């Protein structure tokens, strides 16, 4: 079997891509209007939503960047993962119920629709849509690049496809992504998420066992090796220090409630009471999938420090090298398919919310009404957004990566700082005002963008998003308290009472 390792890997990836195309064709028959396209007609069951929520949360970063961070910085990056139980708790306590209620009563098909209904403000709708669009372009460009690079590395390992170009890999992987996303909309997205989530959870568990089996006394031996080289790497805050770790915990814990690609999924369930099943299923799925992040990083650092392996050329190579050297070929095939699954599930979610922002929300904010034939224009818009993001990705790879780095700053941290106060606090506090929402969004963008543009270095590893999230939430509450209370629309007022 070892002799066919590369063929097995390509086989798994090919089967997965064919599966995505078939799901796209199947879902196209179930997509009749914009509501089906963007939120699956609000008719999905708890298992589908749960797996979609967690697989959307864990992008390709969790499979490549995460293990790379543990390899380079020890336990620091684990703070992005271990606060997931708090993050999901806040997401479900603060958002899941009321976002679904408002979506049901006001027939909302996007997150900006919900905030516009809550605040009765097209300003808040427009600013939310712009924030989402900026974040989506950065995220999507990096996901497309990651997808193409992984495909290229898989293909280049074989004789038949050795020397295949990056552009060809972009075309193939984007072809699959575009096909199922455009034909099947969110229906295709969540049903591929279902399989993607299951693959990711199983892969995480199997990789943990593989990593543990590499050392005589399991991960304890690996940790002892790391500890003897640099104690801080094996301690709970890693080499980046306590404050950097706390900052990641803060932004990834509280910030989970501000991720538009994730909270939009909370608008799609058939019954609100399903949330008590969706919450534990998505949380446990996330933890299982994240085991790969942790176990690969630890075992690779220990293997290099212990002299078992040559140092890696780049920390991001930790997962691919681990799979190539230590994993059973079948398991490596499953994990590579899971890696594609992770990247694609996040990409299709971003495509969905980005298209909604352009085709639905911005026209609503600027003209006060939607486009005619919204379903058709949604498909056209999705194609254009994908191509623009792909162009950004190629430009960053072959030219200057500054643009994507800037847009990348509008990633998790900016979504967190801009959207958490507006949504998580605003859906639970009648006093929250539209003026406060505008102040929170603008301040978060200014701080995050300012720190990135001016390359501001804060002491002790304090991050821009940590400051931005704290400031935007604080300003949101203070401005709301100082604003004159406004009468809410009767239906929204009633929902806030439930």
């Amino acid at each position, binding site marked *: 079997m070892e002799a066919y390792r590369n063929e097995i890997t390509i086989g798994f990836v090919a089967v997965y891509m064919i599966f995505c195309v078939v799901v796209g064709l199947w879902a196209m028959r179930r997509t009749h209007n914009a509501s089906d396209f963007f939120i699956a007609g609000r008719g999905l069951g708890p298992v589908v939503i749960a797996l979609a929520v967690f697989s959307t949360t864990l992008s390709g970063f969790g499979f490549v960047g995460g293990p790379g961070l543990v390899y380079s910085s020890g336990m620091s990056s684990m703070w992005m993962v271990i606060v997931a139980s708090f993050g999901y*708790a806040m997401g479900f306590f603060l*958002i899941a119920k009321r976002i679904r209620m408002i979506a049901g009563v006001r027939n909302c098909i996007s997150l900006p629709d919900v905030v516009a209904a809550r605040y009765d403000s097209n300003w808040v709708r427009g600013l939310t849509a712009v924030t989402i669009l900026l974040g989506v372009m950065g995220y999507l460009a990096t996901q497309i690049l990651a997808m193409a690079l992984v495909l290229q590395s898989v293909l280049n390992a074989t004789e038949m496809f050795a020397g295949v170009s990056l552009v060809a890999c972009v075309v193939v992987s984007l072809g699959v992504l575009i096909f199922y996303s455009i034909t099947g909309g969110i229906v295709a997205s969540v049903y591929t998420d279902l399989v993607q989530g299951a693959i990711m959870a199983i892969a995480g568990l199997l990789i943990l066992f593989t990593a543990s089996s590499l050392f005589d006394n399991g991960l304890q031996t690996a940790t002892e090796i790391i500890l003897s080289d640099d*104690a801080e790497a094996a301690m709970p805050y890693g080499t*980046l220090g306590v404050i950097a770790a706390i900052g990641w915990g803060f932004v990834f814990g509280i910030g989970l409630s501000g991720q538009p690609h994730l909270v939009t999924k909370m608008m799609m369930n058939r019954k*609100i009471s399903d949330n008590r099943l969706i919450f534990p299923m998505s949380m446990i799925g996330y933890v299982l999938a994240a085991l790969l992040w942790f176990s690969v990083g630890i075992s690779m650092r220990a293997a290099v420090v212990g002299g078992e392996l040559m*140092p890696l050329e780049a920390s991001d190579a930790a997962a691919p090298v681990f799979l190539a050297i230590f994993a059973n070929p079948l398991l490596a095939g499953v994990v590579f398919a899971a890696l594609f699954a992770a990247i694609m599930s996040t990409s299709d979610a971003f495509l969905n919310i980005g298209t909604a922002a352009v085709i639905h929300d911005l026209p609503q904010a600027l003209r006060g009404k939607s486009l005619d034939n919204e379903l058709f224009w949604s498909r056209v818009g999705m194609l254009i957004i994908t191509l623009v993001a792909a162009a950004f990705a190629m430009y960053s790879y072959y030219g200057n990566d500054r643009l994507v780095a800037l847009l990348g700053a509008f990633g998790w941290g900016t979504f967190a700082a801009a959207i958490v106060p507006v949504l998580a606090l605003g859906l*639970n506090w009648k006093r929250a005002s539209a003026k406060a929402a505008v102040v929170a969004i603008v301040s978060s963008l200014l701080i995050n963008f300012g720190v990135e543009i001016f390359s501001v270095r804060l002491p002790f590893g304090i991050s821009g998003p*940590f400051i931005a999230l*704290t400031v935007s939430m604080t300003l949101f509450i203070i401005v709301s*308290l100082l604003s004159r209370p406004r009468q809410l629309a009767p239906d929204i007022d009633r929902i806030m009472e439930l």
Partner: protein
Amino acid sequence: MQLIHAVLGLLLVVLGLLIALMVIDEPAFSTGAAHGLYAGMNVGGDGLVRLGSATWLIGWLGATSMLLMVLLSAFGVRAERRSGVFWVLIVIAAAGAEFVWWSMYLEYLAFLRTGDANFVLSFPAATSWMLYGVWLSGAVLALIYIFGFRHFVFTHADEAAYEALRADAETPRLPPEQHKTH
């Protein structure tokens, strides 16, 4: 005092601690340094030295952040539904999160002073508090949500009221003049 005021108070404490950390002297290599032997790998070095004079500011920053996450979860429950039982459960969740945080942090400081890692469940005790404790202390909130769903989050009465509201929203509205003719 309303819960939103407590949330605001904790946010101001976090901001104050961050500002304090920005104005005190930052020790060298507070965020680590490149590994001397392996490219792409970092080291933390001497933990006590890089904490500098910020040891207790950092301790309280972590503790405040954990408490804030618990209180924000409680904020998602309507004020009228925050019964005595609910508050007891939230206090348990908050106490658990604080216990885990301080156990982890104090164990870490003890390691820095003594060098005794004291392995528990395959990892140094401080790291085990992080890997198992933080995750599980957050899971207490999940249990409150799952088992208290029909008491605190979405009662059967809430569900009936919401269904009525939704049905009302879906009912086509007749113009006023047509109402008069019927």
